[in-house]
């Protein structure tokens, strides 16, 4: 149910728009992009792979944001983190477009 790994889209399959070659530190596999058909990823995008299907695009901005939060754990910015965690403030534009996130 839960094993999913980040991988980078290397190239789309020229014969099948639903398939893409994805790379995970040098290991490659054809992955089905059908679950992301509303906003198809392009080469260079990072996706989360589960049982050979791409489940979600990975937002570099959110990842960086999160790393920042973790780095500042325990420091004066604790209050700021709480607000961010609730998702109530306006997040920077992300790959899903408006309306995906609260």
């Amino acid at each position, binding site marked *: *149910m*839960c*094993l999913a790994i980040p991988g980078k889209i290397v190239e789309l399959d020229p014969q099948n728009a639903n398939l893409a070659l994805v790379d*995970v*530190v*040098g*290991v*490659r*596999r054809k992955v089905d992009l059908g679950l992301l058909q509303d906003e198809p990823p392009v080469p260079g995008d990072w996706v989360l792979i589960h*049982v050979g299907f791409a489940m979600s695009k990975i937002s570099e901005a959110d990842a960086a944001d999160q790393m920042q939060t973790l780095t500042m754990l325990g420091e004066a910015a604790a209050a700021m983190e709480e607000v961010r965690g609730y998702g109530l403030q306006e997040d920077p534009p992300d790959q899903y477009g408006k309306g995906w996130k609260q």
Partner: protein
Amino acid sequence: MATIPAAKIRFREPQIEMAHGAGGKASRRLVEGLFAPLLFGASPGPLGDAAHIQINGTRIAMTTDSFVVKPLRFPGGSIGELAINGTVNDLAVSGARAEAIVVTFVLEAGLPTEILEAEVRAMGQAAEKAGVRIAGGDTKVVEHGKADKMYISTTGIGRLLSGVEISPQSVQLGDKVLLSGPIGDHGITILLARGDLDLEANLTSDTRSVFPLVDSLVQAAGAGVRWMRDPTRGGVATSLNELARDCGHGIVLFEEKIPIRDSVRGACELLGLDPLHIANEGQFLAIVSAELADTALQALRATPGGEEAQLIGEVREQPESSVLVTTLYGGSRIVDMLVGDPLPRIC
């Protein structure tokens, strides 16, 4: 406190399953519970990679192994090379230089000659590279469908190096764990070569003779070498668990020190496999005294093929008879032998 396992596990299972050949717990039960009591006498002691025999005052080591591999050919090697290197390595890690090997082929009727020729050629080349003589052999042919193309069995004898006294009993608290190089290359290469998982990687099997490295180690630090093993099927975890059981101590590994290639790591993460359970065909483990550990490490690193050697852990009192992997942040987990072969998972 070192103890030889006292309890004999009687083998109670009604039939042989695949797990019994996988090198993990099930295999051990079969060997300890059926073969040992019937073949090795009342108290055989811990079972090592090779038998040590005295003939007219000369100490020789003898070992046998069989090779069942699918596919026969894979990036970096083939069953023929495995068959030679595997036996050379079993002798090496019992402290012996392989002198001669005899080979048995079990061939499936219908096997194309060119496949057999390729393997025999590969064996000849591997033997030459390893400096071992192929002294003879035997061939049997069985009906189509009964041998998965071919099975190869090799039996080797070797001369024990002087200055080597290795046994699990000589392992002491504070000793260090030495690993010759990155883990998992062979097992992952085979898994990918089977094609069922549709994964590709730039990986090759690490099959090779480890004798030159063992030789360097023994020459540099022979007095401090307590135990050696080549972590083939079942991986580093299985070899070290066997040692832990045999000597009664705990073996603690430092996860950040364990060398592993990126793509092996990536494949293991994708498939949910633990690299410590994956087979290696060109690496070996050694337990070395604390005083000589650094000398041993430098000796390996200075030998061609040993550049990536690492000290990956140490022998401690706790956890008794078990292997523990620790992380830099203080988390730890027990690593046990598997029952059968490692299986990919999605959960």
